[in-house]
C-alpha cells in the first residue's frame, strides 16, 4: 500500500542541522532529516557511522553519557526536543525505544507491560488489565502469555522478550517507536516474525529502525537513510535507494563493495 506524499505536511520527527560531539570527536555532522508519520524509516551504514547515535539523540538517551554536546535541533511534532523547558518524561512517553538486546525488567510479564503506566498514570486495576491485554495483543503475545502474566519476563525466549519490550512501549500510547537493531540478538525465524510485527505496527506508529542488515532495511522500511562517518549521505524511498541510488558511496555500501 502506497501512501500519498504530502510535501507540506511536516514529519513526525524532524532533525535540523544536528551536530553531536563526544568530547572532541564529532559523531554527527549537520544532519537534516525528516521522518514521516506512520512509515518505517531504516537508518543504515557501517559501524561507527552515527546511526545509533542519531537514534539515541531522538529521545535523548545520550544525555547520560559524559562529555556529549549537541548543536542544532530535533523536533517531535514541531516541538523542540532539546533546550530548556523540554519535558523529557512527556517526550519519552511519546517516543519510545527498543534496544539491541531484549531487556525486560526482572519482573513479571504483567509488571513489565505496565511499568511505564505505573510511572505516569493513575490507573485502576481494570484499566491496567485492559492495557496489558491490548498491548500484548498488538505485539502478538496475548495468545501465548494470557495465562502466564505472572511469569518472570526473563524466563521467556528472546523473541518474546523483545516483543514484550515493544508491548511495554505500546502500553503508553506513544507515537514514535525507535528501534536500535531490534533483531540483532534473534535467530532468523524470530527476526522474520519481528519484521512482520514491525509491518503491523506501522499502521499506528512512526517507526525508525537502525539496522546492520541491508536485506532487513529493504524488507521492512519505506524510507532509507544512509550514513557514513557522521554524515547523512543519501535519504529517499527505500526502493529507490536500493535500486537506483544517486550517490556512488551509497551504491558501494548497498552492493556490499564496502562496509
Amino acid at each position, binding site marked *: 500500500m502506497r501512501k500519498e506524499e504530502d510535501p507540506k505536511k511536516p514529519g513526525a520527527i524532524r532533525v535540523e542541522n544536528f551536530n553531536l560531539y563526544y568530547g572532541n570527536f564529532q559523531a554527527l555532522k549537520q544532519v537534516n532529516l525528516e521522518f514521516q508519520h506512520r512509515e518505517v524509516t531504516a537508518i543504515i551504514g557501517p559501524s561507527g557511522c552515527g546511526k545509533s547515535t542519531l537514534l539515541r539523540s531522538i529521545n535523548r*538517551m545520550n544525555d547520560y553519557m*559524559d562529555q556529549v554536546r549537541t548543536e542544532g535541533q530535533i523536533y517531535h511534532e514541531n516541538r523542540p526536543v532539546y533546550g530548556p523547558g523540554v519535558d523529557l*518524561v512527556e517526550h519519552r*512517553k511519546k517516543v*519510545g525505544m527498543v534496544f539491541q538486546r531484549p*531487556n525486560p525488567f526482572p519482573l513479571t510479564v504483567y509488571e513489565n507491560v505496565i*511499568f511505564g503506566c505505573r*510511572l505516569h498514570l493513575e490507573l485502576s486495576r481494570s484499566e491496567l488489565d485492559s492495557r496489558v491485554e491490548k498491548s500484548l495483543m498488538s505485539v502478538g503475545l496475548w495468545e501465548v502469555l494470557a495465562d502466564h502474566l505472572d511469569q*518472570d519476563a526473563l524466563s521467556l525466549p528472546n523473541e518474546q522478550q523483545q516483543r514484550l519490550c515493544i508491548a*511495554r512501549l505500546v502500553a503508553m500510547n506513544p507515537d514514535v517507536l525507535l528501534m536500535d537493531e531490534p533483531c540483532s540478538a534473534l535467530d532468523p525465524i524470530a527476526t522474520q516474525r519481528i519484521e512482520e510485527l514491525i509491518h503491523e505496527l506501522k499502521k499506528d506508529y512512526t517507526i525508525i529502525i537502525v539496522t546492520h542488515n541491508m536485506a532487513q532495511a529493504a524488507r521492512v522500511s519505506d524510507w532509507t537513510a544512509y550514513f557514513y562517518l557522521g554524515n547523512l549521505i543519501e535519504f529517499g524511498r527505500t526502493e529507490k535507494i536500493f535500486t537506483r541510488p544517486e550517490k556512488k558511496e551509497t551504491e558501494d555500501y548497498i552492493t556490499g563493495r564496502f562496509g
Partner: protein
Amino acid sequence: MRLNPKITEKIAFAFLFLSTLVIVVPVILITIELLKNGMSVMSWKFLTESPRMGMRAGGIFPAIVGTVYLIVLTILFALPVGILAAIYLSEYARDHWLSKIIDVAIVNLAGVPSVVYGLFGLGIFVTFLNFGTSIVAGALTLSIMSLPVIITSSREALGTIPESFRESSLALGATRWQTIRRIVIPNALPGIITGAILALSRAAGETAPILFTVAAFYLPHLPKTIFDQCMALPYHLYVLATQVPNVKAGVEYGTALVLVAMILILNLMAGAIRSHFRKKKQW
C-alpha cells in the same frame, strides 16, 4: 633447561593447595580450641547471669546484651547512610575530580586502624558532642568504622545491575530516582544487605573502637537508655584476659565462644540471603 609441564603442573598444584591449607588450618584450630575449653562453662546460667566475684564466676549476660545493643544501633546508623551514599556515588556522581577524591577517601578510611576510630569517637562523640561514654557514642564510632566497607560493598552490588535495566527504564520516561527505586535497589538489595552484615559482624567483634567510647569494665545492672554505658563481649574478653587475675580459663574461652558464635550467626545470615537470591536471579 625446560621443566616438564607435567611436573610444573604438580608443583603449582602443591603450592596452591598448601596456601589454601594455611588459611583453613587456623580456622579449624581456633574452633577446636574454643569448643574444647569453652564448652565446660557453657550453660544457660552462663548466658543469662551477671558476672560475680570480680568476674571470676557467674555469667556474661550484660556483655551479650551490650553487644546486641551495639550491633542493632550500629545497623540503624550505618546502614541507611552507607546505602544512600553508595547510591549517590554509583548512580548520580559523575566521573570527575571530586568523586575521585571521595573514592580515595573511602579506600583510605577502610584502612584506618580501629584504635584510631576509637580515639576519634572519644574526641567527637564522647567529648565534643557530649554523649559521654555511652552506647550511642560507641555505636556511632562503630558505624563510622563500618561505613567504608558498607559503601564499597553496596557500590559493588549496585554495579552488578545491568546498565540495560537503567537505560530501558529511563527510555520509558522514568526519572533517575524512579529507576533507582523501582529497578536498581530491589535487585541490588540482597547484595547490599549481605555486604552490610559482613561489615557489621566485623564491627561487632572490635575492641578498640568501643574501648574509650562505651565499654564498661563491670556494671551491676543493664543499661536503661542508649546514653548509658554497657558491657560488651570483646571488651569483656579483653578485661578477663588482662585485668582479672585467677580467672578460670573456661570463662575466657566461653566468652570468646559466644562472641564467635554471634559473629558466625551474622555471617551465616549473610550467606543465606546471598544464596537465596542468587537462585532467583536470572541475568
